[in-house]
């Protein structure tokens, strides 16, 4: 351990540690552009210059390592390093670098998507001068360059920090980008015949400290200061990346990864983020309904509960033999527990099976082939999990009634023949109950449809493949008849005259804690911001740290 002094603070830090990291960790603000904790250090933006006692000139904090000195060489008899981050000399250097950074910058903040979350803008306000001494035509370079399916590049806004180049070189190892030309004409370019189309390309827009790389999907949608955000979990695979959902007036405009060393590091895949685009076309359910011929007979909660039990009464006595229950890794732990409670009272204790839906292969960064975010949670609750992509038709064999929650087996089957067989099995049922957040192909065949909120419309907990327990958030508020499965279960139980924990998240989470002893001491706030790694998870697997 070395004892260093930064300004007037004494800090202990291990020798060899990056000085900038030490300062930031201790809440000392040093401005920087090109440094990123997950990327290699290049020290080229020169924004983080600080005065280090004994060095002949200012040093970039990002490439200066904490060093230990022999006893007799220590500064003032005790410090291994004495650093100034706010002296007049340092401030002058920061002003100088910032001025140079801005002279050829277009200063088009009013129409720039990055405005409000732009490091250059922040620093210009914090460290820069309010007027410009630059009186010449700025250097012009290409604008609106189509880099790939999701990324647009504006070279004039670019400050040449090379974070995006290093990301493609070091993290995805796809090497699409390079620096071309020289000096003030430097320009980030795609290699010949390449597109920035790796599965993580939108990370470059996150990494870009300015508005040079922007997301095609998000650009020009909304000023960032008008966004309402909530931290939650991405539902698109068993990684369950921590993500911030940015919304505006009831619409999710983008997903941004939260740097979570336990799960995804600072990255997130494009597929997960583009949830924003896929949910646009989804036909949602907003009222429980019974099928009457070709039309739906809709009944709001709680009136629906009585009618549903009435309908159920015709089939209940045979459930033990005739009922098939398909649950899902898209259900939160609370919803899964709710089915258990419900099955005791209503479904003759028939246990459910969660299908393991897979697509593609695992990659070596984040993407998992298992596509259900909480499948590991289902396993931990002792719920049977089917083989990979096992045919749901087999589960329905010999059954006359079925309850399917948050799964769309018909929509997920790709093979034509299997699809026809499944459709036949489903239409042959006497009673098909589907509870889901959308009018899926399966739901279209159902006799009873129960609407559920989407993943981003409810609170819950979920366990990813590493065994990390995370909390999802109610990013958007669903219409009142779209109730989480645990709330729907409560209402049904009440109608049946059975005592139920009620319709809110807390009591159901307590039931989860009872079932998983490890969690008994856990409070909800312990799950923030990065979740809790449960025992028995895959310890060897990394959380996406580079």
């Amino acid at each position, binding site marked *: 351990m070395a004892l260093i002094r930064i300004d007037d603070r004494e800090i202990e830090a291990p020798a060899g540690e990056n000085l900038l990291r030490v300062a930031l960790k201790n809440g000392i603000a040093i401005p920087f552009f090109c440094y990123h904790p997950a990327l290699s250090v290049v020290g080229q*933006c020169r924004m983080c210059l600080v005065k280090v006692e004994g060095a002949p000139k200012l040093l970039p904090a990002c490439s200066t390592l904490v060093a230990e000195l022999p006893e007799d060489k220590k500064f003032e008899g005790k410090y291994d390093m004495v650093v100034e981050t706010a002296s007049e000399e340092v401030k002058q250097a920061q002003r*100088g670098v910032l001025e140079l950074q801005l002279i050829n910058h277009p200063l088009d903040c009013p129409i720039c998507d990055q405005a409000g979350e732009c490091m250059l803008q922040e620093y210009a306000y914090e460290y820069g001068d309010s007027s410009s001494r630059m009186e010449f035509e700025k250097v012009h370079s290409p604008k609106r360059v189509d880099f790939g399916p999701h990324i647009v590049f504006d070279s004039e806004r670019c400050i040449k920090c090379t974070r995006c180049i290093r990301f493609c070189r070091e993290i995805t190892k796809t090497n699409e980008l390079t620096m071309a030309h020289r000096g003030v004409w430097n320009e980030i370019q795609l290699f010949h015949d390449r597109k920035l189309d790796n599965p993580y390309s939108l990370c470059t827009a996150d990494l870009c400290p300015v508005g040079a790389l922007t997301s095609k999907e998000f650009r020009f949608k909304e000023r960032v200061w008008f966004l309402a955000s909530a931290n939650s979990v991405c539902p698109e695979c068993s990684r369950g990346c921590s993500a911030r959902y940015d919304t505006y007036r009831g619409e999710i405009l983008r997903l941004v990864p939260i740097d979570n060393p336990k799960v995804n590091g600072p990255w997130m895949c494009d597929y997960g983020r583009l949830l924003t685009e896929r949910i646009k076309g989804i036909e949602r359910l907003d009222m429980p309904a019974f099928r009457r011929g070709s039309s739906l007979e809709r009944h709001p909660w709680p009136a629906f509960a009585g009618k549903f039990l009435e309908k159920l009464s015709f089939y209940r006595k045979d459930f033990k033999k005739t009922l098939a229950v398909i649950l899902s890794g898209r259900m939160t732990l609370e919803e899964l527990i709710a089915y258990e409670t419900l099955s005791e009272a209503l479904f003759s204790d028939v246990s459910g099976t969660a299908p393991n839906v897979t697509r593609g292969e695992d990659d070596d960064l984040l993407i998992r082939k298992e596509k259900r975010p909480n499948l590991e949670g289902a396993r931990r609750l002792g719920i049977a999990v089917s083989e990979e992509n096992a045919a749901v038709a087999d589960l329905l064999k010999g059954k006359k009634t079925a309850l399917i929650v948050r799964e769309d087996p018909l929509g997920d089957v790709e093979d034509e023949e299997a699809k026809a067989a499944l459709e036949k099995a489903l239409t042959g049922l006497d009673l098909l109950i589907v509870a889901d957040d959308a009018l899926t192909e399966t739901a279209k065949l159902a006799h009873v449809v129960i609407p559920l909120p989407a993943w981003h419309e409810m609170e819950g907990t979920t366990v990813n493949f590493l065994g990390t327990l995370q909390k999802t958030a109610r990013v958007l508020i669903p219409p009142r008849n779209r109730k989480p499965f645990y709330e729907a279960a409560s209402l049904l139980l009440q109608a049946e005259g059975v005592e139920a924990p009620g319709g809110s998240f807390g009591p159901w989470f307590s039931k989860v804690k009872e079932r998983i002893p490890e969690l008994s001491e856990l409070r909800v706030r312990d799950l923030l911001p990065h979740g809790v790694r449960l025992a028995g998870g895959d310890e060897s697997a990394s959380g996406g740290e580079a």
Partner: protein
Amino acid sequence: MAELLQFLTKNVGVSNSTHVDTYMGNGGYEPMMKALHKMKPEAVLNEVKASNLKGRGGAGFPAGLKWSFLPKEKKRIRYLVCNADESEPGTFKDRLLIENDPHLVLEGIIIAGWATQAKGCFFYIRGEMPQGARIFRKAVDQAYNKGFLGKNILGSGFDFDVWVVRGAGAYICGEETALMNSVEGKRGEPRLKPPFPAGYGVYGEASNINNVETYANIPYIIEKGADWYKSIGSAGSPGPRLFGVSGHVKRPGVYELPGDVTVREVIFKHAGGILGDRELKAVIPGGSSTPVLRSDQIDVPMDPDGLGSVGSMSGSAGVIVMNDTVCMVKAAVNLAHFYTHESCGQCTPCREGTHWLLDLLTRIESGEGKPGDPDLILQICDNIQARTICPLGDACAMPVRSFVQQFREEFEEHIRAGRCPLHAVEMTTVI
């Protein structure tokens, strides 16, 4: 008075001087044989250290000391690099050696290889010197044929190779780490230091890099000894040194002189004085990156102490002489243009600052300067100098600053008059 020396330039002008037989007929490769057969590597290293040979590329770092930074472990791979990317405006001494006496350089490299127990040497030659590359390649082939390169050189058990690598036209690749990136086929951008080349150089191996002229001194140090070497020149700049004199002199060219010759002697005694017998106005003493001197500052020796006393340095010893017809603003524009064009652009201050300086200087030169411009130039120089990864930023800021400081009157006259006063004079004389 310093007389011309005949060591480094001994074979210049000799017929067929680039051939190995000519070189050997004149005593060549004997120092190498002496080193390989009679001296241990440490003894060679100590001799070079004792000679206090200063690097001739511009920074003047002691060569022997630099060699001693290489790791000594037997299993480590060590590379030498010869920096023949001579592209500093006003500097053309290495080209003379490469094109006229390649074996002298090669012999120095082999001796250095023996001293440092290196695996081989990358000879990185400027892309715009195709003839030099051709000549040097031929010299390397001849040395292989003679058994001076390759496996088990002259039965000493020492293996050593030389690979000639041509640059692709970037001044920045003369910076040691940018050169190494270029050798590896990467973009020529200087690396962040530490790690220094001695620990992490070409292809990540321990490397030592010296200038062409530095290597050319080695055979003489081995042949005649460190004491002889130190008897030439001054303590700050021992040994013979090549001065490339260009500009407004009667006899421009490369002159081999002791390191402590005065600027005045170089210009007036050896280079024949000012062209057209006009007045001397300014001298850049050590290549375009060094601060400019006024005509009343030239009575100093061209060693670090002497030039240091007038705020400049000996750099690469490229002496650029300017007479009284030269507009100093225009000269500064020329310099700034070069550095703007050659900045690699990775560090903000150099990338943006050099271009801004060029804009400001051009504005003054074209008669549209504003009264605050000279001060703004100095402030921009402050923001560039000592703020970048490599010395290219300094190399632009230092001379530009010195032009403004030494000839401020002339800059202000441009701004006041709205035109170049000198060019007006020329015009009237022509009419």
